[in-house]
C-alpha cells in the first residue's frame, strides 16, 4: 500500500476538534515553522496555535529573501514577521536567501541547512505552515522533517495551510530565468542511467506562465507531456481557459486530449494518488525499454503542490520548477481581499500511523 493512502487530512470542524483535543493538550510541545512573508495568510495558523493555552509552543519564522522584492511587499513581510513573533513569544526569525550570486537558486539548500541546525529534542509535534512558504523552500523542508521523524519515532510531522486558491492565483511570481530541480528532488534526472528512460512530464498548468513552462520543458526535454488540469475547481471553466491559453504550446508538444490529467483543486491526496498510479503503470510499461522517468512541475495552489510533493517523496521523482525572483500582487491578492481563513491539515508522519506500522 502507498505510504499516504490513509493520510489523515483534516479541515473544518474535524480540524478544530484536532486542535482542541490533540495539539491543544498539555502533553504536547509544538514547534511551528512558518513563513514570515508578505502573503496575507502568513499569520492565520499561528493565530490559531497561539490560542491554545495548554501546550508548550515555539516558533521558527522563515523569511524568504528575494533580490527583486518590491519594498511594499517587504514592509508587509516585516509586519507579518513581527506579528508572528508576538503571537508565539518563544520564537526566532531566520533569513533564508533564495538566490545566490548570478541568480543561482539556493533557497532549498539554505532551508535544509537551517533545519539541520535545529534542536528538535523535546518537541512532540512540528507544524510546518506552508501558507507563506514557496515550493523551493517547503519541499526540502518536508523532506528534512520526515528524515528527522525517521530517527525520532515519537515526532509528529504536520503540514498545515490556509488554503485560498484565489490568493494563490493573485500572487504572480516574477520568474527566474532558469528551470532547476527543487533542492533534494533531483530524482535521478540528468543521470546517464536515466538518459534513455521514457520521459514523462506532468506540468501543473496555471494561467499566464507560458515562458516558465517553456523553460521547464526545455530543461526536462520529455518524450510525453501530460498536463495537470485542476478539476473539479472553483471556476469550472478553468480547464477550458487553460487549454485555450496554452493551445500553441500544447500543439507543439503533441499533447492529445487523452493526455490531460485531472486533479481536484482542493484535495492533495487526489493528485498524489493519481501521480503514484501513473508512475507505477509507466514503470511496468517501460521496464522493457530501459525504464521510466516522470518529472513533476507544481505551480499554482498550495494544496495541489502538496499532492505533487507527497508523490515525489514516495517515488523519488524529480521536481523541476522555476523559482521566483520576486512577486507582484495582482487584483485580488491584496491583504484586504484575503478571505476568512480556511485551514487544511495533513498529518504526514507520527502517532497517527503507529497502528499501521505494526500491522505492516
Amino acid at each position, binding site marked *: 500500500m502507498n505510504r499516504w493512502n490513509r493520510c489523515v487530512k483534516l479541515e473544518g470542524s474535524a480540524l478544530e476538534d484536532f486542535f482542541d483535543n490533540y495539539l491543544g493538550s498539555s502533553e504536547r510541545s509544538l514547534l511551528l515553522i512558518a513563513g514570515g512573508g508578505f502573503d496575507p495568510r502568513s499569520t492565520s495558523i499561528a493565530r490559531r496555535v497561539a490560542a491554545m493555552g495548554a501546550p508548550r509552543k515555539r516558533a521558527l519564522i522563515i523569511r524568504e529573501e528575494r533580490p527583486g522584492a518590491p519594498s511594499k511587499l517587504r514592509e508587509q513581510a516585516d509586519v507579518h514577521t513581527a506579528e508572528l513573533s508576538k503571537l508565539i513569544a518563544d520564537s526566532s526569525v531566520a533569513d533564508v536567501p533564495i538566490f545566490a550570486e548570478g541568480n543561482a537558486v539556493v533557497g532549498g539548500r539554505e532551508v535544509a541547512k537551517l533545519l539541520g541546525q535545529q534542536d528538535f529534542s523535546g518537541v512532540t509535534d512540528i507544524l510546518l505552515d506552508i501558507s507563506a512558504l514557496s515550493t523551493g523552500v517547503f519541499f526540502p523542508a518536508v523532506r528534512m522533517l520526515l528524515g528527522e521523524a525517521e530517527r525520532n519515532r515519537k515526532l509528529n510531522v504536520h503540514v498545515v495551510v490556509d488554503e485560498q486558491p484565489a490568493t494563490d492565483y493573485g500572487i504572480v511570481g516574477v520568474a527566474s530565468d532558469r528551470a532547476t530541480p527543487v533542492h533534494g528532488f533531483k530524482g535521478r534526472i540528468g543521470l546517464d542511467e536515466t538518459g534513455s528512460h521514457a520521459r514523462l512530464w506532468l506540468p501543473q498548468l496555471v494561467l499566464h506562465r507560458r515562458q516558465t513552462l517553456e523553460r521547464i520543458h526545455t530543461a526536462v526535454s520529455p518524450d510525453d507531456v501530460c498536463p495537470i488540469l485542476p478539476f473539479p475547481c472553483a471556476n469550472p471553466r478553468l480547464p477550458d481557459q487553460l*487549454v485555450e491559453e496554452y493551445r500553441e504550446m500544447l500543439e507543439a508538444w503533441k499533447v492529445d486530449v487523452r493526455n490531460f490529467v485531472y486533479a481536484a483543486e482542493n484535495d492533495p491526496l487526489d493528485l498524489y494518488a493519481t501521480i503514484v498510479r501513473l508512475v507505477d503503470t509507466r514503470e511496468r510499461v517501460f521496464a522493457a525499454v530501459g525504464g521510466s522517468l516522470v518529472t513533476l512541475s507544481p505551480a499554482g495552489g498550495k494544496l495541489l503542490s502538496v499532492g505533487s510533493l507527497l508523490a515525489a517523496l514516495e517515488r523519488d521523482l524529480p521536481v523541476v520548477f522555476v523559482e521566483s525572483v520576486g512577486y507582484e500582487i495582482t487584483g485580488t491578492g491584496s491583504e484586504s481581499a484575503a478571505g476568512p481563513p480556511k485551514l487544511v491539515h495533513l498529518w504526514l508522519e507520527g502517532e497517527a*500511523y503507529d497502528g499501521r506500522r505494526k500491522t505492516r
Partner: protein
Amino acid sequence: MNEDLTIRALEQVMKWDDETIAKETIWLRLMSHFKYDSYRDYLGGVRFSERLVDWLQQFRQEDRQAAYDYVRQRLIFVSYAEMQHLVNWFFPAFVEPVLVSEVAMKLGVSRYLLWNQESAEREFELALRKTLFVGLSDGARMDMLRRANEKRISNEQVLVTTQVNESKWQDVLNELRVDLKDDTARFSRVFLVDDFVGSGKTLLRREDGGTWTGKLKKFRDEYPGIFTSHFEANWTLNVHHYVCSNEAFGRVQATAEEARRELGSQWFDNFRFTYGLVLPEDVRLDRDRDATFWAHTENYYDPIIENEAMRVGGKTAKRGFGECGLPLILEHNTPNNSVSLLWAETNGENAHRMRPLFRRAQRHW
C-alpha cells in the same frame, strides 16, 4: 467530415470578417476536439461545429453574435474525462471519510487516530463491505464507479438502480452474509449516487397538496420493509451527486430535513448530502448581466417544451427546468435545468422552431 465546408458555412452564417473567422476557427477546432465533439448524441458528419452552424441559424442575423458569445464565453461542458475524474474521486474523497469517522466512532477513538489502532484496517474493511452503492439514474455511472473501485467494492454491493425487485434485495443481503460468514449481518450505510442535481425538485419536493414525492421519497417507499430487515439500526443514508447547481447546494439538505420533521418515521434518520463539483452562483443566466441572451430566451422560445414534468419546476422553461438558467452540458446528456435554447428541439408549429446545440435525450427513469 469536411472541416473546410463547415468553416465556410459558419462564415456565411455569422458574416464575420477574415480575422474573426480565422480566430474563431482556431477556437472551434480546439474545443471541438478537446470536449464538444464527444457529446454522446453527436454522429459522424454532424458534430459540434455542424450543430453550431445549424443552431445559430435559428436566430436572426443581428442576434447571432450574442448567441455565439454565450456559447463561447459561458458554456460549461463536463467532458467524459472530467466526469470520469468525478467518479474516480468519489470513493477517496466522499466514501472513505464517512467510513473513517463511523469506524472511529465505533472504536471510540478520534478519527485522526483511527489508523493508530491495530484493528483499524480490519474494521474499515468490514464497514466498507457493509456499504451499499445504488444508482439514482442512468447518469450515475455505476459501471464507471465499479471499474474505478474494483479492488475495493464487490459487485454484490452495487445496484445500478433503485428500481430493483425484492429478490434482488434479498440477493445482496445473502451475499453480504456469505462474504462475512455472519448470518445476522446487515448493511450499515447506503450511498445513493447521481450525476447532477439542478433544482433539487426531481430529488425531493412537496407537491401543492402537501404530499411528498421525488426520487428519494420513492426509494423510501418502494420496499419500506428492507430498511429494518436489511439495515442496522442506526444506518446512514449518503446521497452523492457528481455535479450540483449552486441553488441545490444547501437547499436539498434543508428540504430533506423538512421532510424528516413532517414524515417522522416514514423518512430516514441519518442522512447527508455530498457533491463533487458545486457550480458557482455566477454561472446562472442573469437578466441584467446577460441581457441580450436573456432576451433571446424570451424571443426564441416554443412553449410546447413545457410538458408536465417541466411545469413542476416553474411557470416556463425558458431558462430551463426550474428556471435554473444553467450553461451546463454533461458529456452524456444535457440537464433540463440548462437554458432550454441549448437543448430544446421543437417542430415550431405554433411558435419558434427551437433547434438544439446539444440535443437532450429524455430520461425514462
